[in-house]
């Protein structure tokens, strides 16, 4: 079985993110693999092992920003494909989906492609569904577990507001994975060394036959949210009882319950 996984690199979630001269900046905080994508890689590796198969990692980013991809390789993915092109700067989510879909097709004969739930920079959470739509494959988003995978079909449990929805689908299919799937493995020492030496093709839009990619969205202004003026009152008292009574009065006075 041929499995692919799409990963993105994002600034560390602990980074202070600010706007400087209208540009987003995270100082010297490192780029990391998008945390949700670690679960997708874990799922891809587990399924490849169970089925006998290989995992290709696909990542799109600025030239040189390969941290996400390298992390996935270090976790155990077999090969990598990087998509980079100056024309990709500032494209919108539908355009990005067309690019990733084209990359998946170029990798070729993929049976199952995994995505993370959401990228923690753009917070869109739509890519898996959109790529599925471009490819014309079923979208099995928000998968918390894969209960069955055969040569031609897959059964997954999807996390929805009401609980779990169990869905059966033919392959090829697109799956996005939630944290419930299970803890991602750490890269091994050997894996990290292998990832550092890995060779991978870099595809531009021309390679993907996507010369006429259009984006319709624009982001006229990015700002830091106004600091909230919060006056913190520490509630004190001689006993927990006394503190509780005072706090209860103060909470009631806020008229939020």
């Amino acid at each position, binding site marked *: 079985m041929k499995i692919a996984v799409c990963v993105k690199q994002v*600034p560390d*979630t602990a980074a202070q993110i600010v706007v400087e001269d209208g540009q987003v900046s995270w100082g010297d905080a490192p780029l990391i693999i998008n*945390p*949700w994508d670690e679960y997708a890689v874990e799922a891809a590796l587990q399924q490849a092992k169970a089925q006998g198969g290989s995992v290709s990692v696909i990542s799109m980013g600025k030239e040189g920003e390969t941290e996400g991809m390298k992390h996935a390789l270090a976790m155990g993915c077999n090969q990598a494909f990087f998509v980079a092109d100056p024309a990709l700067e500032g494209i*919108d*989510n*539908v355009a990005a989906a067309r690019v990733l879909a084209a990359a998946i097709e170029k990798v070729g004969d993929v049976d199952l492609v995994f995505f993370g739930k959401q990228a*923690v920079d753009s*917070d*869109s*959470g*739509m890519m898996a*569904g*959109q790529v*599925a*739509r*471009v490819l014309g494959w*079923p979208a*099995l988003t*928000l998968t918390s577990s894969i209960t069955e995978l055969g040569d031609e079909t897959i*059964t997954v449990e999807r*996390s929805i*507001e*009401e*609980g*779990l*929805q*169990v*869905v*059966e689908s*033919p392959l090829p299919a697109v799956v996005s994975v*939630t*944290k419930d799937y299970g803890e991602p493995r750490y890269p091994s020492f050997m894996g990290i060394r292998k990832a550092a030496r890995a060779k991978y093709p870099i595809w531009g839009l021309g390679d993907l036959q996507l010369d006429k990619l259009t984006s*319709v*969205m*624009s*982001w*006229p*202004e*990015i700002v*830091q*949210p106004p600091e909230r003026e*919060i*006056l*913190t*009152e*520490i*509630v004190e008292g001689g006993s*927990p009882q006394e*503190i*509780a*009574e005072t*706090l*209860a009065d*103060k*909470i*009631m006075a*806020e008229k*939020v*319950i």
Partner: protein
Amino acid sequence: MTNKIWVFIDQFEGNALQPSWEGIGAALTLAEELGGGVTALVFGQDVENVAQEAFHYGANEVLLADDATLADYRSAPYTQQLTQLVEASAPDVILFPTTTRGRELAGMAAVDLETGVLVDVTDLEVKDGVITATRPIYAGKLLTKVQCSATPQIITLRGRVFAKPEPDESRSGTLTKVEPAMSEDAIVTDVVDYATSEGGVSLTDAAVIVSGGRGVSNNPALNPPADLDEEEQEIWKAQQGFELVGELAQVLGAAVGASRAAVDANYISYDHQVGQTGKIVSPDMYVACGISGAIQHLAGMRASKVIVAINKDPDAPIFKLARFGVVGNMHAILPPLTEALRQRLEG
């Protein structure tokens, strides 16, 4: 110019999710500013009751696709239904709640319709007929304005941000039944089962949330059964701690939340996790018990109106966002706090 503003009503087994009605509220405001009417889209099976409710909330028209193929949400027939209706009627704007279904459907329909998606929006402005949305990015560390130059403008609204209109049962409107877009033969996926979670208030809809962190297990006064190993003893203690959290939640009609540390230590299941890799919430009140306030936790709850923090460490970062703080042992504070609030709410 009269605009057509559509709102997708997300329903499960005939019950609309509350943020759908917030969508009608936002659509009515847009209709005032842009001129035009509000059409609700209701897809499902035996869901005419939801269509009626949409009128009560203020929709002028409902497009109802009521068919067995739409009984369960599946992305393909739902997307096809939507794009077919859009191609026939050319709406200007389509609003969705940012629910799991709403987000997915908006994204997939945008592919077919060659437009973009303004996702998880917290503010909408109209100037000279152009819509500018505001949305949080980087887990709310930044806000971006965003515009789409194509039509329809597809927008998903963050829950609990836009006001829900008051329903009025005397209202009605034009109900138009539409044919299903796909036949069962053409749909390749099957929904074979559900495991729906029992009751409880949903985190993302909750007006009040009481959350517990690693501190829920830190109650030296407890004596766990001696036959448990160390990890089991910790979880046993945490369960007693979450019971106190749950009792306060019950009195407040609140949902129970948790930090990732509590989830990772198996104190409580992942669907309770609040934060960057959990749920993003914005209740009227958020009570954080034994939670330090790591940046990834704050990312999930910083938009809460009033934050109350109970933590034994006076330097815990959570206090910086708190309206009220108690420096102390949550296990000692919670029972009398629950009782004190119970008396005030009943009295």
